[in-house]
């Protein structure tokens, strides 16, 4: 099913916009304009599929297409060659209109070996295009994945458009004068495939050539081999008669601005660094490597020039300890991790709750429990983020909704942490971390400043009436306590994990005080200023509003928005809202939930947000929870929306299910 198509039963081949293919220079192959394409590159984890996907994405981005990507790789760095567990893939949707997801299913599957074909064929709709490296379909490779006969030859792929091409031997042939061994030459086959695909989809090649020149600047032989293979792939496309048409996808209409393509983890790192810059604070990251969060550590490690210090800790606990120590010293302390690491950091985060110091904890969620699915995505750490500490230890929780939104969400997490002197958990996930999309670059000067307002002098009077420092005297507005940094004369004080006496911060075991302080810590978090909930609920021509609300949080934004768009194109009335703030919830959320007959909540867990909302607002939120390690498809959520509308007690069934394909694609809808 095509994600961007509001007519789910539309044919799966690339959509034709301009009618019949038209001939075009320079090659003789006719060019056909299509609205959008989903390509999946799949191969052995040693085949360089992520790099191939990245490069194709960069070419596509610079062409101005809208796009979204989904890398998918095994937990093992190099699983046994040619086996199913060793298959690595990279899916990309690009289009001339708004793209919300990497696409439910590929139109084109590039399979570099039998394992890649076997692992991915089920996702390819009938009629889809398969480009396979025929050289790799040897008896041995076929056997490894349980094929007795080659699927390229036994007719089992009859309902697809199959291009079985000797990619490996063509690469070796192209490199016969390179001086490289056969084995080394074969390694460039991904660049051959990239060149061929670049021709097929009419992508610009300069950026990839520049990239290869830089990447292999110190290895001229390898550089030349990759460039030669890349150009040979393009030339093969141009000369072969195997492809009946080439495709063109026109640039999407983006708002004016300067754009780049960016992954969630890079955007998140930039958001943290930018927020620290806007706050005038040095950023100190304490982190222990963990999939899929390590890329943030890598990115920040390269930002020393921006006053960013990164310490790779001995373990997860030390990572957050280092961050907290740095925050005590007046820096912005940050730690990055994934679910198992968040569990280890829990006690220190609890200390930060007690100390009331700024701290940002980034959890790039992955499949759990335990080691779970380290390279796959999930949203099942929400309750851990909310409650995974001993005692009453509330803290703000913020979630990013798309790769580019990771930048904004990171800035928001820093704002809250610094303003309210509190640990904040920022939730990303494996899909956001590795996925990418074009990003309209913000202007740093125009972003709001963050005021750390560190204490400079006494804020009260002692028993003797003389000026004194009261470490737990709160700001009446924010309930934040002063951030008094060592080195400030006259403010020497001791803080710790033992309960504090209100105002003075001395140790206190007094029952009334403990209850008061517990209430104050809760009230501070409850009072964090967050923007009111925005509900997308267009008024129908007859003046009515939707009776079904689809609510989401985090990375489900894309598939939910796509499903709602498609449902509306079918004539269904459905409202949509998305949460950035999980704690505190945005104002207006309870009223919004109560004002719909039905609230549907898709989330990649067993229903964690639904549980929180039911408890908090006593609304019968319908959970749609899945944990398959991959994002929802828009098609699946469209079914969920249809079912929710159909289940309304007095539902007019005609409106709910218009004849499939009866509603033409409307560009306005597609661009929403």
């Amino acid at each position: 099913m095509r994600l961007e198509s509001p007519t789910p039963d539309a044919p799966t081949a690339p959509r034709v916009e301009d009618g019949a293919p038209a001939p075009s220079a320079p090659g003789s192959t006719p060019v056909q304009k299509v609205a959008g394409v989903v390509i999946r590159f799949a191969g052995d984890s040693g085949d360089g599929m992520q790099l191939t996907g990245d490069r194709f994405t960069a070419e596509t981005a610079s062409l101005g297409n809208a796009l979204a990507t989904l890398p998918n790789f095994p937990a093992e760095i190099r699983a046994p060659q040619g086996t199913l567990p060793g298959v690595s893939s990279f899916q990309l949707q690009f289009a001339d209109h708004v793209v919300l997801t990497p696409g439910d299913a590929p139109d084109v599957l590039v399979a570099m070996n039998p394992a890649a074909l076997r692992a991915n064929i089920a996702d390819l709709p009938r009629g889809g295009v398969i480009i396979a490296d025929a050289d790799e379909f040897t008896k041995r490779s076929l056997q490894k994945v349980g094929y007795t006969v080659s699927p390229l030859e036994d007719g089992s792929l009859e309902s697809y458009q199959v291009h079985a091409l000797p990619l490996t031997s063509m690469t070796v042939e192209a490199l016969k004068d390179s001086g490289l061994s056969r084995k080394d030459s074969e390694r460039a086959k991904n660049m051959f495939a990239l060149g061929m695909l670049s021709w097929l989809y009419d992508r610009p090649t300069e950026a990839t050539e520049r990239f290869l020149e830089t990447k292999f600047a110190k290895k001229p032989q390898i550089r030349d081999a990759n460039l030669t293979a890349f150009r040979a792939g393009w030339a093969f496309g141009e000369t072969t008669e195997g492809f009946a048409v080439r495709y063109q996808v026109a640039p999407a209409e983006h708002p004016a601005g300067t754009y780049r393509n960016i992954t969630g983890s890079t955007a998140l790192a930039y958001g943290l660094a930018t927020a620290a810059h806007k706050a005038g604070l040095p950023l100190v990251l304490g982190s222990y490597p963990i999939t899929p969060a390590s890329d943030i550590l890598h990115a920040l490690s390269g930002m020393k020039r921006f006053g960013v210090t990164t310490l790779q800790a001995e373990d997860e606990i030390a990572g957050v300890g280092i961050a907290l120590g740095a925050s005590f010293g007046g820096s912005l302390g940050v730690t990055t991790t994934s679910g198992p690491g968040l569990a280890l950091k829990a006690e220190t985060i609890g200390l930060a709750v007690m100390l009331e110091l700024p701290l940002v904890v980034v959890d790039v969620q992955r499949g759990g429990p335990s080691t779970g699915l380290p390279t796959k995505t999930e949203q099942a750490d929400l309750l851990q983020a909310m409650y995974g500490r001993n005692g009453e230890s509330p803290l703000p929780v913020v979630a990013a909704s798309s790769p580019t939104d990771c930048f904004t969400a990171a800035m928001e997490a820093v704002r809250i942490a610094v303003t309210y002197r509190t640990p904040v958990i920022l939730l990303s996930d494996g899909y956001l971390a590795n996925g990418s999309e074009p990003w309209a670059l913000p202007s740093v000067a125009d972003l709001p400043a963050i005021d750390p307002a560190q204490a400079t002098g006494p804020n009260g009077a002692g028993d003797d009436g003389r000026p004194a420092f009261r470490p737990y005297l709160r700001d009446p507005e924010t309930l934040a306590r002063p951030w008094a940094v060592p080195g400030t004369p006259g403010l020497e004080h001791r803080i710790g994990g033992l309960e504090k006496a209100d105002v003075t911060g001395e140790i206190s075991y007094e029952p009334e005080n403990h209850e008061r302080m517990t209430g104050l810590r809760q009230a501070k978090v409850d009072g964090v200023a967050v923007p009111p909930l925005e509900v997308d609920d267009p008024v129908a021509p007859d003046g009515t509003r939707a009776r079904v609300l689809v609510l989401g949080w985090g990375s489900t934004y894309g598939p939910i928005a796509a499903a709602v768009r498609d449902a509306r194109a079918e004539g269904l009335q459905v409202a949509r809202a998305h949460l950035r703030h999980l704690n505190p919830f945005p104002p207006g959320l309870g009223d919004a939930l109560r004002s719909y007959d039905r609230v549907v909540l898709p989330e990649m867990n067993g229903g964690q947000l639904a549980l929180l909302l039911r408890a908090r607002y006593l609304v019968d939120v319908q959970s749609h929870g899945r944990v398959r390690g991959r994002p929802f498809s828009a098609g699946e959520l469209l079914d969920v929306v249809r079912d929710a509308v159909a289940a309304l007690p007095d539902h007019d069934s005609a409106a709910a299910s218009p004849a499939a394909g009866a509603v033409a694609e409307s560009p306005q809808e597609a661009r929403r």
Partner: protein
Amino acid sequence: MSTTTTPLGLPGVRSGTEDVPRLPEGTTLSKKDFTAANEVRWCPGCGDYAVLAAVQGFMPELGLRKENIVCISGIGCSSRFPYYLDTYGMHSIHGRAPAIATGLAASRPDLSVWVVTGDGDALSIGGNHLVHAMRRNVNMTILLFNNRIYGLTKGQYSPTSEVGKVTKSTPAGSVDAPFNPVSLALGAEATFVARTLDSDRKHLTSVLRAAAEHRGTSLVEIYQNCPIFNDGAFDVLKDRDETQARLVRLEDGQEVRFGREDDQKVVVTAPGGGVEVVPAADAAGREVVVHDAAAADPTRAFALSRLDGPSMAHVPVGVFRAVARPTYDDLVRDQVDSARAEAGGAASDADLDALIAGGDTWVVR
């Protein structure tokens, strides 16, 4: 009071407090300035009192501004220490003080960072952080109060308790082999390792002085008596006669020699790389060990640390090792500082714009 510190005699070696702001010339602080108003709540007779008094008494000698001194502790009886020292302080969580102090020290070269910990805190629950702090050589002084028992949880054996120890959790006697903290520290690449006693104020202060002077992680093990749950653990080292017979005072550049007047002993090299104790009278023809804390090779220091055993027949105290090695925090800061200097100073908004734009942008009009 003197504000000068003794250089280690190593060329180009910086003091541990070199980047910490000092008091104006002619100003001094007193012990009282470092005494917090909080009522001290250790059990009567606890060895912690003596250590606290020694530290409060020593602090003015550093000549530092007291707002630039920070004490971070973990959990345990001794970890209440920061509440009683009128500086900045943090009573953190069990075992994690070295990690928290690492973040503080790395980000603030202008602070003198002290960690107070115990045998359970540092060697059991926090063992990982302790060894990694020493390996990295973060500029901080760690005071490890070793009372060989869990006091705050009321008397379970600790990772330094002797085998066979009967406690609440080991009614049939502990079968756990103990750590020798000095040996552990030497094995963990520590650049400064010392041992002292709660009851010997003068020795304790001299060790504190050397530890504060050292740039890098200074580990100071302090034998500390817990009169409630492990009373008299170190009594054999406190009795005047016994002290002479057992306590081996390591003094740099001096032969390692101890014992009662009528029973002098020396430490000599032994086959296999170790050392052993022999009566001075029998030492003819043997190589008497001359202590060299600055020796690059820690082997001799390690051998000396092995003289100590659960029976405390011979207990070396003093500075086992003090060698110069670049500190982690200095190196980390150097990388950040040079990256900034190369780029022309602190980043501007435009620099951030350039960073987030990366190399591959396109413009939509």
